[in-house]
């Protein structure tokens, strides 16, 4: 073989191959006219410090259009940017502030509420917002097909007296202590395009950003509403939300500058980012989620309340908060966060960890056989700690991991065979909302199959008060708390905060009590 005389020798071959490889692997990146990386960063870095720019956000779950009113997955983003409600709670109190309603007057008997609306608000379609839209939105929210959490409260609004385009009186079936929760939660919908809500084809609201486009499983795009009723707002021109299901890919996207804000990095990644400088981790305080251990009280081994008390005494809540949620939360015995009018410190320490007491209770009852502990992805670490805690007092637990769809099916179908771990929301609102809106707490039908006339009565009493706050309400909530602590069909672990991690150039990032981002005052420096 004479490779050199052929004109296609080894040296030539290697040289040609090298050039080809460089052209394929590196040339495209290095010789390209424009860098894709620079383009990704351009939205933030080249933005005007105060006004303009594109905020790129990464989240792990896509929108489910049919779930628009359920406060799950990506719906808080759409609701927070596109829609507005009549009033808004500050994150740390239950003192309603005006939003689309300028003022309101609750009747002395608590059975009607008159609302005065803003007259300078337009939907993104250009149509003016009026009292008819309030009626339409509340009626839509109460429709069973939307499965909205505060549906029972919306259904208690039985009459709508439209006095003028800017004045409406809501007639209530009974006094409704959580009426302001309802008004804070229900997005004002455009009746002309409501048939497209469930398909995700368009979203028309009155909010600071207009919905532009959705690429399923990939992206949601919004742009500034130029006719927004708050002058000179929003600052941002555009918001692009990327769906990045993998937590590592989400972290990489944030670190590489592809996005400027990420929702729900793993708690450990967020902790490390916060320490590294250049990033801010926002614990969504005021929009608490609460981890709990659920109990099927009809299982013979768990029917004896002393076994449930032993479980409550054996939980190492501090360890779960510190190790799993990396300190982004705090332990609780009661289902209310610390800023709730129902929170009471003495009740909150009732089941502090006490292993001798747990063992003593188990000695007095029939020791349970091995119990299944069901959990969905994301709750594996909590389940393992609960398993170890229960082993400390001699309760054997078998971990039962299921996927999210199966978990929901078992939760709503009352199909858990023993224990389960997950979290609940809505405790940060008027406490009666929890017992009528969050399914695990529902007095009449819940995942635990717990049925107690005393609990039902306490929950109904608290719900049908005219005022959601004040001494009378606090007494009613404490009665509910006592029922929950006595029944122990749900054993609380503690608050965990959902987190957004942002690069430091993002300023003015805010959120509602339902974890909806509020970007009205957000800007990029």
């Amino acid at each position, binding site marked *: *073989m004479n*490779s050199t005389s*052929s004109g*296609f020798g*080894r040296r030539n071959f290697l040289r040609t*191959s090298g050039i080809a490889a460089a052209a*394929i*692997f590196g040339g*495209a*990146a*290095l010789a*390209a*006219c*424009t*860098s*894709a*990386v620079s*383009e*990704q960063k351009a939205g933030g870095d080249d933005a005007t410090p105060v006004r303009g720019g594109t905020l790129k956000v990464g989240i792990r779950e*896509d*929108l*489910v259009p049919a*779930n628009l009113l*359920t406060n*799950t997955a990506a719906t808080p983003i759409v609701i927070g940017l596109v829609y507005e409600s009549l009033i808004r709670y500050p994150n740390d109190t239950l003192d309603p502030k005006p939003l689309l309603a300028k003022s309101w007057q609750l009747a002395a008997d608590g059975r009607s509420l008159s609302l005065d609306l803003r007259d300078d608000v337009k939907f993104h379609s250009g149509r003016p917002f009026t009292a008819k839209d309030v009626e339409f939105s509340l009626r839509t929210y109460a429709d*069973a*097909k939307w*499965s909205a*959490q505060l549906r029972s409260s919306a259904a208690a609004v039985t009459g709508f007296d439209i006095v003028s385009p800017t004045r409406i009186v809501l007639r209530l079936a009974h006094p409704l202590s959580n009426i302001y929760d309802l008004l804070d939660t229900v997005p004002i919908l455009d009746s002309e395009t409501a048939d497209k809500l469930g*398909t*995700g084809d368009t979203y028309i609201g009155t909010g600071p950003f207009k919905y532009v486009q*959705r*690429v*399923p*499983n*990939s992206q949601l795009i919004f742009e500034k509403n130029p006719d927004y009723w708050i002058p000179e707002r929003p600052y941002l021109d555009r918001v692009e939300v*990327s769906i990045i*299901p*993998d937590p590592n*890919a989400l972290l*990489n*996207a944030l*670190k*590489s*500058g*592809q996005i400027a804000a990420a929702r729900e990095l793993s708690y450990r990644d967020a902790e490390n980012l916060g320490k590294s400088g250049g990033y801010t981790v926002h614990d969504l305080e005021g929009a608490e989620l609460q981890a709990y251990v659920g109990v099927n009280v009809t299982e013979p081994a768990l029917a004896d309340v002393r076994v449930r008390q032993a479980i409550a005494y054996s939980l190492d809540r501090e360890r779960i908060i510190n190790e799993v949620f990396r300190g982004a939360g705090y332990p609780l015995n009661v289902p209310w966060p610390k800023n709730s009018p129902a929170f009471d410190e003495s009740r909150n320490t009732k089941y502090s960890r006490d292993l001798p007491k747990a063992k003593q209770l188990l000695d007095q009852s029939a020791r349970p056989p091995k119990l299944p502990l069901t959990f969905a992805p994301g709750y594996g670490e909590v389940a393992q700690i609960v398993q170890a805690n229960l082993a400390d007092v001699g309760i054997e637990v078998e971990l039962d991991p*299921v*996927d*999210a*769809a199966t978990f*929901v*099916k078992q*939760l*709503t*179908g009352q199909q858990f065979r023993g224990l389960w771990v997950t979290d609940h929301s809505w405790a940060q609102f008027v406490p009666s909302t929890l017992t009528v*809106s*969050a*399914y*695990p707490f529902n007095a009449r*039908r819940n995942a635990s199959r717990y049925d107690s006339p005393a609990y039902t009565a306490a929950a109904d009493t608290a719900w049908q008060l005219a005022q959601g706050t004040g001494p009378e309400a606090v007494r009613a909530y404490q009665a509910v708390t006592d029922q929950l602590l006595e029944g122990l069909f749900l054993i609380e672990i503690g608050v965990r905060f959902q987190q957004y991690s942002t690069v430091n150039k993002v300023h003015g990032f805010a959120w509602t009590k339902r974890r909806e981002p509020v970007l009205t005052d957000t800007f990029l420096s």
Partner: protein
Amino acid sequence: MTRYLLHRLPSALLVLFGASVLIFLLLRLVPGDPATILAGNDATPQTIEVIRHQLGLDRAVPVQYLHWLGDVLTLDLGRSYIIGGEITDLVGRGLTNTLVLTVTALLLAVLVSLVVSVASVLWPSRWLDTVVAAANTIAVALPTFVVGPLLVLVFAIAIPVLPAGGVPPDGFIARPDIAVQYLLLPAICLALPVSAALTRFLTEALRTELAKQYVLTARSLGIGYREIVTRGALRNALPTMLTVLGIQTGQLLGGAVLVEAAFVWPGIGQLIEQGISRRDYPLVQVLLLLSVAVFVVIQLITDVAHAWLDPRIRIGGRS
């Protein structure tokens, strides 16, 4: 060739029909359904029933199957229950992304394997063999879920020259220079194990060919070694490579699921994962059937190409 193709078609159609029945039934055996997902955690049984009725899930399973089969045969794929939008659009978009990624990866793999294999037999040397063997071993041994993050860490975070993930914002056509940058990392990640396997098989096939008598005869006639390799041995070795390529293409599509997750590439893999985890029946049924169809078609193409290259198979097919 046409007769050979017609001979193979009935079994392919039978496989597709069987797959459609299995897919439909298996999905319904999985616990959880779209109605509970749509209803959410706080739904009452009445709400779930209302949604189940709306989706037609309260009808008998055979009725649901026939309805679905009729829709598929008339190319009316309907709407996705959970993800939302027309299934045709969802599948079209996902398929385009996956095809662009896998075809790029396949081209890379074929190119690399051809160059390396031909170089290995044209200029045999110990160091080249050692380097190629080591590279192949690493490429096969390292799983894509390790290679992917490594590539991102190096080329998107440590030395930020390429995007960490995603597809080109303006599509693949509008800005080819940008599109290539988005494609490079996931395509390399996906191509590595395939190129290693192809290189190994092609090199061995070439060496086997070069040990045959006709090569000795050709050399004795004074034909250049390069010509013998490129025009003789390579052509004879290609059928073996094609068979491996068919199998590897299937693996490539399987590997695409992991690569798509690591590089946030919204392709079919991501769509299947989302659809299954959310029990989006109509979408998953179409996607799984499509996956089976792709495998059947690839197998068919491989066999036809094989028959084209090797007349004995054609004749066998005819008889």
